[in-house]
């Protein structure tokens, strides 16, 4: 079977790149871990790939605000990205990746990539890493979460994850179209409507704050019961993307 090409797009201090690449590779993709500089210089093109992932981390130190500098760099390859998305090739942004996508106007999806939402400092005021329960919106068009149970556990690890929309209309559109793919069972950061992850209308562009690559195998879970099944819910996110493009 064909191994789809997954681009794991990194910048300086994108820290979750290797485990994300490992996750896509394990799920059957051919992972290419590449620096944004290679695309800015024209050496590589995003259109040569089937799947695009923005991994977590602290890109460019998260200086100014989380994901901001990376999103400014993305401007130069915006045309390629827009084509990639128009082709319905899957795009996932995890944690810092989600922050980058929101700050680049890729999510919430809108014409002209206007900024209609943000991810703001957690209500607690600082970085917070813990495992949380999430509700999966089974009515959502998201291709990454297909087949998941209605409640899952993933770890979160962020300082700026409070999802805020520009206005109530933006939020209403998200809720009406079931674009809120994941919501927190117990809101840890003050996000509007408990939102932990959103997607575009056709379900191929997806961003989320928690880390599916960190609950990929059962032994990554803090409650070390004897589990027969090696794979955990996080695997499904990556497998779904690979199967979608096959």
């Amino acid at each position, binding site marked *: 079977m064909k191994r789809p090409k997954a681009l794991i797009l990194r910048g300086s201090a994108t*820290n979750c790149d290797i*485990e994300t690449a490992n996750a896509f590779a394990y799920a059957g993709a051919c992972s290419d871990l590449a620096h944004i500089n290679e695309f800015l210089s024209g050496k590589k093109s995003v259109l040569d790939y089937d799947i695009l992932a923005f991994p977590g981390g602290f890109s460019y130190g998260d200086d100014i605000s989380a994901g901001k500098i990376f999103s400014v760099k993305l401007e130069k390859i915006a045309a390629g990205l827009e084509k990639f998305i128009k082709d319905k090739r899957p795009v996932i942004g995890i944690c810092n990746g989600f922050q980058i996508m929101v700050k680049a106007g890729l999510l919430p999806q809108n014409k002209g990539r206007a900024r209609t939402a943000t991810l703001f400092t957690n209500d607690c005021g600082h*970085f917070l*890493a813990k495992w949380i329960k999430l509700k999966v919106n089974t009515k959502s068009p998201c291709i990454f979460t297909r087949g998941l149970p209605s409640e899952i556990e993933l770890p979160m690890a962020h300082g700026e994850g409070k999802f805020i929309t520009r206005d109530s209309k933006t939020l209403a559109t998200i809720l009406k179209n079931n674009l809120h793919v994941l919501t927190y069972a117990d809101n840890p950061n003050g996000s509007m409507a408990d939102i932990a992850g959103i997607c575009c209308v056709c379900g191929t562009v997806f961003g989320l704050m928690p880390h599916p690559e*960190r609950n990929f*195998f059962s*032994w990554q879970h803090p*409650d070390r*019961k004897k589990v027969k099944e090696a794979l955990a819910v996080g695997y499904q996110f990556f497998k779904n993307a690979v199967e979608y493009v096959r």
Partner: protein
Amino acid sequence: MELLLSKFSTLNHKQLAALDKKYGWSLNLLELEAAQRYFKKLKREPTRGELETIAQTWSEHCKHKTFSGPVKFRSGRKVKRYKNLFKETIVKATRRLNKQWCLSVFKDNAGVVEFGAGGKWALAFKAETHNHPCALEPYGGAETGVGGVVRDIMGVGLGAKPVLNTDIFCFGRLDSKMKLPKNALGARRIFDGVVEGVRDYGNRMGIPTAAGAVVFDDGYALNPLVFVGCAGIIPRDKIHKKVSPGELIVVIGGSTGRDGIHGATFSSANIAEDTSNSAVQIGHALNEKKALDVLLKARDKNLYSAVTDCGAGGFSSAIGELASECGAIVELEKAELKDTAIEPWEIWVSESQERMVFAVPPKNLKRLAEIADGENCGYCVLGRFTGDNKLRVTFKGESVVALDNAFLHGGIPNYEKNAVFLSPATCNLPPKKIKKPYHQVLKSILSHPNVCSRRSIVSQYDHEVQGGTVVKPFVGPGQNGPSDAAVIWPQAATGDMKDFSGFAAAHGINPAVGRINPYLMALYAADEAVRNLLCVGADITRTALLDNFCAGSPKDPQVMGGLVLAAEGCYAAAMGYGAPFISGKDSFYNQSTDAAGRQYPVPLTLLISAVAPVEDIRKSFSMNLKRPGNPIYLAGTARKGMGGSIYNELYPSGNNALSGLDIKDSFKLYKALLSAMRSGYVMAAHDISDGGFAAAAAEMAFGGDFGADLCPELCFAESGISETELLFGESPSRLLLEVDKKSESDFLSLVSSLQVAKAGYVNNRAELIIINARGKELVKEKNAGLLACWERDLL
């Protein structure tokens, strides 16, 4: 002063001392005289840069001249002499144990041991302190401390990928009533700043900070101790470096500035009110991450033949070290500078952060430069290595330093230090009876700052980045159980998700014991570290240790006496557990002038860090109780003595005795338990330490959804032991184990000849009940109530 410098070789003692004070070298008279003799022989006067280089290279921080120097230890009428204390204790154990799996010890930036199956990988481990900077600027001090130890791992062999950070803090008590001197920062300020610094740097570097400890004790009110550790994974064939003449000196990472002049000499001096500000820096994690990315790419393409980090002493020690067996020519004008207002000698010794130095064959320079450009990482070619064993440093053709390696690295004079130790009086009477019921005592112990939850700290660290933190700081269904050790599965370093090799990392630290008996402190600390590793199922027959000593002034014979005893304890522990030390570090002069004008040193503190392999991380253990009906066993013998315990701090019992520790017995016990764990008979294990039996049982209970019915009196104990000692005593070498009911008889046959006895059962009521042998309830408390006491936000 310039005048004095130009007549250096003819100065008298008083003038030498004045010069040293003025320039902040922290060189003693013997050393200054050795330098004088050297330049007399050369028939010329030194440059400022040369004396600065000597001061850096010979500093306590770089040379560890106290620990590796001669000591005369007097104990009663007996006198014992050491030529080199470090070599005759800690290093001696490693040499005698001669473990084949130790690949590189005590010579590189970190110790290196074998890792995983198949001989492809190795593990590097190192811990150091960053105490002085943290006292002045906690945030920046902690940041640059983390940055420094990470660079040690990046600079070991040809470079390892960091996969775990550890952090151990000793602070003054947050509720301290102590009056501080005008300029000192309070414990709260230091605590907040240090945690934020470790958080911001570690998180930005993408290294999980997943193991550590915090000790609150007013002995640290003026001098906090901040230990930072790092473990990395390196290909087995890349653990050695070799510089060849003709190779280029290439520096990558941050640029060089006036910040960080004199860090090494500063950390070898007492903190004074007028301490120079330039010794404190703010970290730049992004630059270090770029340097790490460049380094790993270049390493895997074999583009360089040696690397080391710029730490204390900056270029002078990094290049000096790499060139120590060949020589080098350095042209300082080629350095990337932060600002131009900098003297040439300052470029040479500046400790500006986030810089690595490579030895690069000229043909590889272009490819290295391409990688650096691709990662937006700065680099410069500073000169080349030679074969003439001379270190020549110039700035635009003018000589800054021209010294012989032999003198610089071998010329340091040393003198014998006196050591004595006067043991404090100990009392072994039964602990005083108190009115407070046991369940309330337990609750107050659980909420003691040295026992309570570290969640408010740990949750600020990205402790699961790299996706390999298998046993996390908090385990169990509600993540309420405090782990004994971290288990790391370095998939992000090996890139192999089908290789389940991992390792565990843990610590032992107990300054309260050290106040009574430094020898036992070392034994207890090593024992606790080994036991912690055992609790997660690590192969403790392959434990590797790190020692980190912190003390006051080595000029105080009592300080040196404690150090000698603790070092001897390290030797005994290493031999007993078959656990070699692979690297170590010491920090002296952790003392300040208090508000009343007296010298206030930290208590002698020894941190023992330990790593051991976990063959299959899928089979590692967590400490929370798993299934009602399972029996709970207590392994080891409860012994008399409340010395150094949390109980004694809260309710002084009059008894400050410490029980001895029979390492041979303990190790035999641990090995049997390990084989029971490997056979699948054990469901959970937890060590008994701070707070004793009752606290350990409570943690196992609220770590999960189940409770326990226990009777410690039915287990092995020294005869005549009191109820207080049984419940809250902290005698070492004990663990609690939940055994799978189905395998109980198999378990018992494995441990039949050992001191392992049933203490009770897991219950399904989420309630901890502890009774005595007559059936009287000593403790009866719901998990929720215990958890509520333990779950305190320290931050």
